[in-house]
């Protein structure tokens, strides 16, 4: 599958290495992608492979780029491998052993901590339940009347505690406040 650029590539400008235009760059990129897939042994459609081979054979810039890609891949592939220090295995095994013990201890400890937390939660819930179901010690006797202001403090009503307190303070200014009713002493 040749493109119109193929015929232009044979012009003296291309042969002399003039800068490729954008269309050629796009073609080169496409060609290089196919060639590198072929280089890596990837399956490519035969027609596409034939086009890429023809393209690179007639485009000097594409051929140069392809050669550079091959060279850099070879440079990466030729990188040496590392070798472990002689005591590497011993260090792995020594690091593994204490951690295993710690892991075992953690495994034992974790259920204990969980059990403790569950037990504490249950104890708290039972205590609250017992407190709530138990009848209150407060009974409606005469002391409630004597200390009415205290009882009012806990009574739900349209007045808040601060209202009741303000009312009591207001009554202190009342000249009749605290006076015994007539005949009360008899």
């Amino acid at each position: 599958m040749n493109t119109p650029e193929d015929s232009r590539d044979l012009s003296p400008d291309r042969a002399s290495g003039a800068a490729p235009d954008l269309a050629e760059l796009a073609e080169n990129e496409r060609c290089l992608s196919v060639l590198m897939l072929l280089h890596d042994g990837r399956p490519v459609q035969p027609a596409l492979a034939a086009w890429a081979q023809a393209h690179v054979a007639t485009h000097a810039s594409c051929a140069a780029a392809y050669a550079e890609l091959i060279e850099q891949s070879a440079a990466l592939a030729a990188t040496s491998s590392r070798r472990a220090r002689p005591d590497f295995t011993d260090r792995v095994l020594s690091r593994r052993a204490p951690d295993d013990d710690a892991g075992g201890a953690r495994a034992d400890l974790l259920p204990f901590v969980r059990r403790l937390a569950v037990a504490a939660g249950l104890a708290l819930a039972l205590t609250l339940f017992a407190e709530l179901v138990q009848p209150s010690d407060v009974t409606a006797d005469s002391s409630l009347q004597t200390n009415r202001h205290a009882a009012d403090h806990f009574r739900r009503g349209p007045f808040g505690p601060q209202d009741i307190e303000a009312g009591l303070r207001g009554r202190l200014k009342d000249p009749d406040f605290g006076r015994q009713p007539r005949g009360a002493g008899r």
Partner: protein
Amino acid sequence: MRDEDAALVARLCAGDEDACREFVDAYRDRIITVVARVAGTGSDAEDLAQEVFIKALRNIHRFEGGSALFTWLYRIAVNTARDFLASRRRRPSVPLDGENGPNAEPTAPGDGPAEALLRDERRAIVRAALERLPEPFRTTLILRDMEGNSYEQVADLLGVSIGTVESRIFRARCKLRALLGGIAP
């Protein structure tokens, strides 16, 4: 599970010390190499490789035999190195000094001193440029061109499709070429 793997895994699961030693001895060089390449470190590579083996030994009971034992270990190594790489992103890049360490570069037969020097210099430049490649292109290219994995293996290791691997490898090569001074294709 392969027979030789099954026997070794059974001994590892039983906590056999000799089996652990055999396991680490068999794969340590390859694991250190891939960790050093992917993590881009030299001095930390041995620590990371130790971490890989410790993870593997602790989780050996989870190995189900769907792949070879080394493939399973290799995946742990790649993931450990990538995690390290991700955590190191804020820190300045460290060159692959491990690649220039005590292990000599392979020498082509018939190379003279001048050719060997030029070749080594060229490889060093390529590796330095590789360190400047952005992720995920860098790791993908390392797994393919340096580690020699197939496209399918790279896709499996990185959890992406074959098409993504094909695209990333080509993009990575073009970016690397651009970093080396070549123009875009």
